[in-house]
């Protein structure tokens, strides 16, 4: 039954007892059958004797039948006892098995629990609570400082960005204005052939216009 050294299951005294009981049960069963046969035979014999009008012999046969019937009743009772004991042995061995299992389970729980000390657990919980409280405090302090510093930084960054954007915007404007001026410049050489003084007057105001306009933006 699980023993590593012996291949076959071990035979205990309990097993021998069970074997004895079972053998007895079988033998009693056979005895019952035997008695039943005798009873039947005697009944038949009695019937025949009555027919032959041999009253005293018939009565004898009936008496014998009666004894056998009493014996049969007793054997029935014995058989019940044997069965009862077999059932009891079975029950007790099962109870023992359950008890063993529960005992084992109990030892297992005890062993695991012994590894975890109650005081250690309490200390651990306290340490954890302390650490958490410290952390909360730290967060609170850090949180305050940050809000004051933040404002200054943000304002500084804002000014920075603003000036950057202004610088970026300026170069763009000239390119769009310059294009419509060029065709007028091209025309200029033509004009002097007719009236050189007039064309000069025309060119300078336009040049001034070119220089002035970027500044206005």
């Amino acid at each position, binding site marked *: 039954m699980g023993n590593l050294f012996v291949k076959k299951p071990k*035979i205990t005294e309990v097993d*021998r007892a*069970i074997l*004895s009981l079972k053998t007895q049960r079988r033998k009693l069963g056979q005895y019952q059958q035997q008695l039943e046969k005798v009873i039947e035979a005697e009944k038949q014999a009695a019937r025949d004797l009555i027919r032959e009008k041999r009253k005293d012999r018939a009565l004898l046969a009936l008496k014998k039948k009666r004894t056998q019937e009493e014996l049969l009743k007793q054997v029935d009772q014995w058989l019940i006892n044997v069965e009862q004991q077999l059932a009891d042995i079975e029950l007790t061995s099962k109870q023992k098995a359950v008890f063993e299992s529960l005992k084992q389970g109990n030892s297992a729980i005890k062993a695991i629990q012994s590894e975890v000390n109650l005081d250690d657990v309490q200390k651990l919980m306290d340490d954890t609570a302390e650490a958490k409280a410290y952390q909360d405090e730290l967060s609170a302090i850090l949180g305050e400082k940050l809000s004051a510093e933040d404002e200054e930084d943000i304002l500084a960054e804002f000014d920075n960005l603003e000036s950057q954007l202004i610088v970026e915007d300026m170069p763009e404007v000239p390119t769009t204005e310059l294009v419509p001026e060029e065709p007028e410049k091209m025309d200029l050489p033509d004009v002097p052939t007719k009236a050189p003084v007039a064309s000069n007057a025309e060119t300078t105001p336009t040049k001034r216009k070119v220089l002035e306009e970027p500044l206005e933006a």
Partner: protein
Amino acid sequence: MQKLADFKLPQFFNYPPYFTLQPVRDTREKQIQLWKELILDYCKSQKIFLIGVEEDFPLFSNSAIDRSLSHEARETFLSAIVGEGRAEWLDKGHRKCLVLWHRIQDWADIILQFVRDNGLEDSVMTVEEIRSGTESLGTELQGIDRTILMRALKLLENKGKLALFKGTSADDEGVKFSV
């Protein structure tokens, strides 16, 4: 088809030639094959474990056609079965034959299955109980031949599945299972 106590006999049983041992090798082999199967099937259905060569085995003669197997024929067929491992001669003179329509290994498996089905693990039973107890009624184990049963149990004992033991001298032989 003829019937022999609820067993359906094959057609060839009614053909006289099959009752004579055929001289031609091929025919004889076919004949042996048919008889082998017939004998094994019949024994299985009727739960016959022992055949006496001299005895009046129902298969050995067919009165309807007035034919019966000669001693030589019987021995030939039975020897063929022995050769296949489905039977054993119990004596040197080839007079009694133990028919193993289940091999001993098969019987061992049947016993193991029986133990599992009835929840008999770790319990004790008498050998007689296996043969004729209430649990084995209706199973293959009912009325099994004692020799075959003991052989199968010994086989299982060698495998460590059970232990055979005897109690006091008046007790039956006991078996303790631990499948």
